[in-house]
């Protein structure tokens, strides 16, 4: 109950007109930068850091938190409409969301993502308020061995996105591994696959790869088929928002996404991408409309991952506020803002800066409400984008992708990479290789490799760490069940259908 009185106090801080104004400004700005590929929340907050010299700490953190949450909402818009993810956390949203937009359900995809973000964001923020001390204990028990086992589990589950041909899917996945390895190896400091170019030493940005493969590749493919086929995009079919059936299919996915996103977001090396992959895989597995995945677009495949990424955004705040641990680029920059006020974030923050922390948490609730109010009416405006004739629309996407990529690092090298990958994306599309596994491979592989080598360094080369740690063993067991479970299930089903008289030894 103590938490409730703290929270009530937090609302009294957040509900002052000035702080509400900062919250509105932050969420609007966040939505805008989320829509633009290349401008992420981390960069925006870094550029706004000098504001900390002018305003009170509460005001600037409310602004930053608004930007952070807003970017998570906005990032999905371009993923769905243009197949151009603005944030790495919304890459999975593009998979089904863009299919839905093409088959005339763009409005529903945007609605489920906005409402799902609201539901998950609110649940996640409740988690920050009430569960932070418990969750952080769980998060700290994750060592390199546990992370590696989590990656194994993730690799098993992402087979869901490999597509119909596993050879093609695995080829794409391995291409992703190689792209993920480009750059200086963190463990040894040695460059890999950089061909002597200093611009490649930091690796390739995942947004550049996603935009190159999805948006640029798609544009080339459309251009090549311009006179061969007809326009594929259906402007709008049925109601603008969600139908009753779509609501029914969405709400469980939102809850499952939030349940996955929040704890994984709270892990020091968790991030927002892995829960979105896992959520997508789970929704595909549980859906009664599997045929819609990858064809006309399944709403569960948008609802789950969108909820997961917003809940993980809240999860990231748990180690930041309770331990002073920045677990994402955005959190790290918010921590440096704490420092410019002479506040040292750490285990004492909840006590020493109660005003600030509870004001921030309260403003997260408010930001969520503002965001859903801001985003729902915008849907009507956004879907009109799809009425633009294909040549103009795709030309626009190309300009948008190029400018956005240049915005990430102002590096001409990135533009070359973007168009090379666009060419690769075109060829992959032409010869029917799925592009999503490339992205998943490039995100998961470096994590798995780093954690594996860390675990082995710490254990001094002893493999038993992976099965002697209970948590790691649990995760590996889950992965094993995920791998052979479906086969056993199929086998049992087959036997059941054939009937008992055919069971061997039952003569």
């Amino acid at each position, binding site marked *: 109950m103590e938490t409730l009185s703290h929270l009530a106090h937090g609302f009294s801080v957040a509900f002052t007109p000035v702080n509400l104004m900062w919250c509105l400004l932050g969420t609007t700005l966040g939505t805008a930068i989320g829509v633009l590929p290349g401008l992420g929340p*981390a*960069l925006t*907050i*870094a*550029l706004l*850091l*000098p504001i900390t*010299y002018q305003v009170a700490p509460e005001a600037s953190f409310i602004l930053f938190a608004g930007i952070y949450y807003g970017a998570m909402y906005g990032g999905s818009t371009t993923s769905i409409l243009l197949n151009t993810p603005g944030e790495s956390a919304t890459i999975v949203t593009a998979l089904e969301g863009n299919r839905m937009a093409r088959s005339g359900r763009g409005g529903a995809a945007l609605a489920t993502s906005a409402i799902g973000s609201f539901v998950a964001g609110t649940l996640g923020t409740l988690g920050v308020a009430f569960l932070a001390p418990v969750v952080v204990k769980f*998060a*700290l*028990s*994750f*060592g*390199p061995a546990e992370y590696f086992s989590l990656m194994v589990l993730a690799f098993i589950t992402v087979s869901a996105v490999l597509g119909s041909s596993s050879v093609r899917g695995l080829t794409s996945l391995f291409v992703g591994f190689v792209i993920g390895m480009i750059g*200086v*190896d*963190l*463990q*040894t*400091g040695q*460059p890999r696959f950089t061909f002597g170019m*200093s*611009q490649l*030493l*930091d690796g390739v940005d995942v947004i550049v790869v996603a935009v190159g493969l999805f948006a640029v590749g798609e544009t080339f493919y459309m251009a090549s088929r311009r006179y061969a086929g007809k326009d594929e995009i259906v402007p709008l079919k049925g109601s603008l928002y969600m139908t009753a059936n779509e609501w029914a299919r969405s709400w469980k996915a939102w809850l499952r996404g939030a349940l996955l996103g929040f704890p994984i977001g709270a892990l*020091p*090396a968790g991030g927002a991408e892995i829960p979105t992959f896992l959520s997508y895989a789970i929704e595909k597995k549980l859906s009664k409309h599997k045929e819609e995945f990858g064809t006309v677009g399944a709403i569960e495949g948008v609802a789950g991952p969108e909820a997961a990424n917003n809940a993980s955004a809240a999860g990231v705040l748990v*180690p930041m506020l309770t*331990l*002073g*641990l*920045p*677990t994402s*680029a955005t*959190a*790290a*920059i918010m921590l*440096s803002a704490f*420092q*410019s*006020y*002479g506040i*040292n*974030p*750490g*285990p*004492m923050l909840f006590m020493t800066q109660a005003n600030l922390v509870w004001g921030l948490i309260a403003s997260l609730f408010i930001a969520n409400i503002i965001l859903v109010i801001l985003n729902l009416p915008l849907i009507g405006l956004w879907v009109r984008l799809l009425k633009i004739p294909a040549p103009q629309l795709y030309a626009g996407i190309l300009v948008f992708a190029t400018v956005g990529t240049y915005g990430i*690092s*102002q*590096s001409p090298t990135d533009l070359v990479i973007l168009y090379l990958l666009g060419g690769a994306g075109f060829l992959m599309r032409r010869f029917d290789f799925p592009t999503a596994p490339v992205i998943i491979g490039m995100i998961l592989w470096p994590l798995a490799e780093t954690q594996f080598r*860390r675990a082995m*360094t*710490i254990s*001094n080369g002893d493999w038993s760490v992976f099965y002697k740690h209970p948590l790691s063993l649990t995760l590996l067991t889950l992965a094993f069940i995920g791998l052979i479970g479906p086969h056993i299930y199929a086998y049992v089903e087959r036997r059941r259908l054939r009937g008992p008289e055919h069971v061997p030894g039952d003569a």
Partner: protein
Amino acid sequence: MLNRRRFLMSTAAAGAAGFAALHLSPAFAQDAPQIQIFVPAAPGGGWDQTARTMDQVLRSEKLISGSQITNVGGAGGTVGLPQFISQWNGKGNSLMVAGMVMVGAIIANKSANNLTEVTPIARLTGEFEALVVPAASPFKTAADFVAALKADPTKVPVAGGSAGGSDHILFGLIAKTAGVPAANLSYVPFAGGGEALSALLGNQVAAGISGYGEFSEQVKAGALRLLAISADKRQEGIDAPTLKEAGIDVELFNWRGVFAPPGVSDADKAAMITLVETMAKSDAWATECKNRNWTQILLTGDDYAKFLAEDTTRIAAILKDLGLA
């Protein structure tokens, strides 16, 4: 017409005056010039914060009228450095922020350019490093840690920042003075201080080395034990010996400083040194440094150049021992 012509001429004159002020000759120093700061790192990191804090303090002290900050990030600064050398050549009103990390990155990345090609202006701040262990660790003192390291370095995994960075370098130096071969060390690099911290709090590793600021709150809360710091002398409010006091003859500051481009005139160089020195001695700068746990270690001009040469030699030797150069 006449009015308009007069107006145009006066704006032209004002423009010319502004242009002259850009060149930092001492006579114009009072006129609060505009300066340009080149940051060879993405926004948000230590170098970027140094640049933005300098901008803030210089403006509040009315030493400049404003500044323009350019970020070219990547590979520990070795992507930005060649650009600063070639494209900013001779620009007397500009500065680049750099530091020990770049010295290490130049060596490890075998970069074609190095810091002897730019003009040293001033070493400004440093962050000393801390050697910490989890609260439950059997190591009570730095001597315990070194004894365990000597007994079997593979049994003492130490967490810190990226391979070849300041944390790894300090670990190498500690081992070297203890007579432990650097090749046997078990160093576990993490991308950021936060991740290394979580490995320590979760008792995944035996010890951790990073900037004191990364650990200070956990030390105060009793979750980590501070064994020693790498500063030159004991620090007020920190209850731990220096490495030297603990019998390990190592001193290390992860320093940050500023450089002018190559080819600037002696007058511009002198003016820039005066400007930066005035800033570093202001109260506003002292407050900012205190808030950010930066220790002021001001060193200018030729002394700075001499220090840079010595530090480069020391870092090159230890990186070679660690197998990174």
